[in-house]
């Protein structure tokens, strides 16, 4: 269980320079210098792996090499170490070398889904999108439950503007992890981009339902939407505006989602405007602009 989880983490690793990794790197360097890792047992090896990843975040390949050497001496035949070696190679070697390394590993042991994911990552980075999609689809055919894999596939399709395929991939992610509102939000936004406005509206409202704190201490009319709820209300506003100004959008839903009837639609529009104005007031502490277009433009800069 622990192995599967850490393999997943290695599969999705991308160098990202965050404060947390800087902290890990600084603390870890001190411990590494004193040789303290060898004596710590289980947690020590995990910490060594984290240190290697933090070092690669900042391009410090020498520290990463040292950690890798300690780990590979201790665990010579471990899929996690192979994955870590692959990540290390991606930092400096040319993509062809890395791809060959991953191919060798997969030929030996094709049950390591993390290696497969990283291979698709490398292919995407060098621009071979169609091969990346092929590899990723093959991997997801074998390991259906990798949510991150489905998200990555959806992201690739989105970057190529293949919105329908992206929607399909996201729907698998939703099936696998139906409690996470961020995926619903992503689905709703993709539906909006795919011009399926009724579906997008439905999904935005789902997100609001999932994230709105209606069992908190304030009555709903007093509560302030923040964070993901605000973003979802923003989406609702975009959809209702589009449905009102372009009636054709209501009937041309590729997924045959029925649009709300006009009285509900205008009520929803008013509600979302009011929610957005409350959110704006809360963030900026000044009165929001009255005109719809200005409100939307102002919120585009505020919503995270």
């Amino acid at each position, binding site marked *: 269980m622990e192995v599967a989880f850490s393999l997943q983490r290695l599969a999705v690793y*991308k160098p*990202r320079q*965050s404060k*947390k990794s800087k902290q890990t790197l600084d603390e870890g360097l001190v411990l590494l210098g004193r040789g303290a890792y060898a004596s710590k047992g289980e947690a020590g090896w995990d910490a060594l792996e984290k240190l290697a990843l933090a070092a690669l975040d900042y391009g410090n390949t020498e520290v990463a090499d040292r950690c890798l050497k300690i780990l590979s001496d201790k665990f010579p035949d471990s899929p996690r170490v192979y994955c870590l070696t692959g990540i290390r190679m991606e930092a400096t070697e040319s993509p062809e070398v890395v791809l060959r390394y991953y191919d060798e590993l997969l030929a030996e042991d094709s049950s390591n889904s993390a290696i497969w994911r990283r291979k698709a990552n490398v292919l*995407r*980075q060098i621009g071979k999108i169609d091969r990346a999609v092929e590899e990723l689809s093959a991997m997801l055919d074998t390991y259906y439950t990798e949510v991150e894999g489905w*998200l*990555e596939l959806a*992201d690739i399709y*989105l970057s190529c*503007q293949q919105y329908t395929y992206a929607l399909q991939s996201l729907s698998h992610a939703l099936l696998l992890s139906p*409690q*996470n*509102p*961020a995926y619903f*939000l*992503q689905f709703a*936004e993709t539906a*909006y*981009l795919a011009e399926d406005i009724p579906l997008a509206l439905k999904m935005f409202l789902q997100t609001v339902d*999932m*994230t709105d*704190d209606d069992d908190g201490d304030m009555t709903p009319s007093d509560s302030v939407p923040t*964070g*993901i709820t605000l*973003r979802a209300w923003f989406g609702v506003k*975009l959809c209702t505006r589009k449905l009102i100004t372009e009636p054709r959008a209501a009937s041309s839903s590729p997924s045959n989602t029925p649009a709300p009837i006009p009285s509900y639609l205008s009520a929803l529009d008013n509600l979302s405007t009011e929610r957005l104005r409350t959110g704006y007031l809360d963030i900026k502490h000044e009165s929001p602009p009255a005109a719809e277009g200005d409100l*939307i*433009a102002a919120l*585009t*800069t505020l*919503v*995270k």
Partner: protein
Amino acid sequence: MLGQIMLLVATVALLHAAYSTYEHLSHLKALGRPEGSLPNDIVLETIAALFLAIVGATVRSPPLREVTWRSEMKRRAQEEEEDPRLSFSLFAQRAGLAPKVSPASTSL
């Protein structure tokens, strides 16, 4: 704090009762009648230590977490870093709400 004090006191009381029992039994052995029963105050001390330990451990437990998925998701959203793929600015660019930034500057 109170819970820890209670636990400490309970532990000390238990150890004291155990030591008293040992002393009492060796006293009995020395006197030549090894089957005497334990004096009542040692028994009382042990039971009191038990109650104190239970109460102290309960008071000391960390605050309970919510059961619903919704609250769990809220907690995770605060802890985890934002996934750049799910960022709003990407959506805004693709939807035409915000001006497009050149591909070289958007991260993969």
